[in-house]
């Protein structure tokens, strides 16, 4: 059986109505709800695809405070996962990506009792502003082949390889879709544009069955939950959390406004006299004059 792992993250919910900003435009973290991050959800969908198509069993992991359980639960709804893992320890707090990857490496190492995980998925980035570094760093520490920006994949179980399509877009260039083949195990960060496609009737039947089961399982998700600390992940405390992070946040400031050469004219649109010259100008430009 194919073993699939997913690493996910609890993130602020940026969707309309849930996100709250301070008056200076910064995120109000206390007021903003936290959910399973949207990119993590896409990674979950990819794992679920493996379950429907190849009969995989799924293990989900997250490093975070106890509240991150809620993300695991949401992930179970999406994946019908057999196993949920919370890596939670005060020592992990304040980790940068390298120190996070250190924990996730050992976490993935413990999935399904410690065998090889054939495919591990991570999200493209954490919501909006994060780095996208955690996935590839975890992959490197695990020694798994890394594939980024994957938009489609198929597994050849006999040959134990994955064939994947990746998106490459570089500054000023047309986008490239690259098709690659790699032996298992692999670590895949899934592109935001990934969509699972279920072609056959039997797949759709399975999909519905697993969806139902997933919802059911999630009602009693604690039964599937394992909680790990740095000790039972065999981690060196010097390599995790703030202590194990090469980087620190030194300063946060407002970005000064850019100096520009434009002389801004402010227009009050309620007065038609203000609008007319503008209209003429737009029409001229539209006509290429």
């Amino acid at each position, binding site marked *: 059986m194919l073993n699939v792992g997913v690493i996910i993250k609890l993130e602020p919910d940026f969707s309309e109505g849930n996100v709250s900003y301070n008056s200076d435009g910064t995120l109000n973290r206390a007021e903003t709800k936290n959910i399973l991050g949207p990119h993590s959800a896409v990674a979950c969908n990819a794992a679920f695809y493996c379950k429907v198509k190849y009969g995989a069993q799924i293990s989900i992991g997250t490093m975070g405070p106890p509240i991150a359980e809620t993300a695991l639960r949401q992930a179970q709804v999406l994946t019908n996962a057999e196993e949920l893992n919370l890596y939670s320890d005060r020592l992990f707090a304040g980790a940068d990506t390298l120190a996070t990857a250190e924990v996730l490496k050992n976490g993935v190492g413990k999935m399904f009792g410690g065998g090889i995980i054939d495919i591990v998925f991570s999200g493209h980035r954490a919501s*909006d502003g994060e780095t996208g570094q955690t996935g590839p760093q975890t992959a490197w520490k695990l020694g798994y082949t890394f594939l980024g920006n994957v938009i489609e994949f198929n597994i050849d179980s006999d040959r134990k390889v994955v064939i994947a399509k990746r998106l490459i877009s570089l500054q000023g260039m047309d986008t490239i879709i690259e098709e690659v083949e*790699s032996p298992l195990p692999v670590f895949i960060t899934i592109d935001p*544009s990934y969509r699972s496609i279920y072609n056959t009737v039997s797949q759709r039947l399975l999909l519905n069955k697993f969806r139902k089961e997933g919802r059911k399982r999630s009602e009693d998700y604690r039964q599937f939950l394992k909680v790990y600390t740095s000790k039972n992940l065999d981690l060196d405390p010097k390599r995790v959390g703030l202590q*194990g992070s090469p980087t620190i946040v030194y300063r946060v400031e*407002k970005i000064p406004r850019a100096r*520009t050469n434009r002389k801004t004219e402010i227009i009050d649109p309620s007065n038609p006299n203000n609008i007319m010259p503008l*209209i003429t100008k737009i029409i001229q430009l*539209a006509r290429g004059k």
Partner: protein
Amino acid sequence: MSVSVSQEKTKNDIEKYRHIYVIIEHFEGKIIPVTLEMLGEARRLMDEFNQKYNSSEKVVAVVLGYNVRQLCNDLVTYGADSVIYADHEELKYPINDIDTKIIAQIAKDAEIMKKISPEYEKTFVKPRYMFFAADNIGRHLSSTVLAELDSGLASDINKLVISDLDIRHEHKTKGQSIRYEKVLEMYRPDFSGFLWTTILCLDNKNPEIFREYHPQGCSIIPGAFKPIEKDSSRKGTIVEYSPNIDHNLKIKILNRRVIKKTIDYETCKIVVSFGRGIKDNPEQNIKLVEEFAELIGAEIGITLPLSKKPYQISQQLDSKYMIVDRVIGTSGSNVMPSLYIAIGLSGAVQHISGMKDSEVVISINPDENSPIIDESDIFIKGRMEDVLPILIDQIKKQMSTVSIRSN
């Protein structure tokens, strides 16, 4: 622990970390612009650095590929002092695993150091700083290379400063104030585009968790820096590195297909972009923008948050407009039309960077404090729901029957 060993010895003898290594990206024989931008910034930083610290450290470009020798001279003319290149058929296209191993080998290679800076050969351990592009290739490559070199990395940087800083940190310095020299201050705009976070990669000087973290790495936003002017008279050392390629290649590239961008911003004269300001009535407001854009023959762009589909709108509008291909800014397209109309968007740095070269900029926004005002020639102070219908109406009247499209 080198620091305490020999205060009387000149610092130059004991420093283990040297130079800025810039990881070059190229595609089918062409250098990707961000590469030259990184070289330009590295040049500026190194010139100041060498003057300030009275040293002779270098900008070192690292190129992997196939038939890349001819790129090396160009890299020198754009600011590199040395170019290290690895040329091999298997390196024709970037493959993360292979490239990571080779770059990490190069970064630790004393033989190469002998060729580019013989004076540092004996003490050299690793690069001092390392720059990558914050794009599909560089983002992942920077992550894996720095994981292999066991050091720290900041992503999506748009400003860099090298300075000496007094740091007091619970873990790094065990609460003491310690002077760190030659620290790379890496500025990263946050998700809102209005806050700047400065990230530092610092050695742990706390004896209980002592560990050195070099190189100090970062990935750089395309478009953030300016290349230096090409100077064909510049001289540099070009060194070939013969990589140890694992012939048991794990990953095979089966096929590469170029897909043309679905939206062509290059040839259009007017771009109309909208942002989260549509929020009060997304469906209606997008339709307004659509009508307005059609009327004046404009292409439509969006801000990044909209590509994440934060609103419930009809499938038709959603799949047409809320797509990554329409994002204007560092995560999407750069545009420079004759007219850019910014509707309901605030003007975050990442967005501005993609439209600032437009000839004329008009914005529609009720909030005079939105930074887009600084980048606007005309700022129409008002809600899009109120302003757009007036514009549409007036333009229709003035244009009478002749459509602009056919013009």
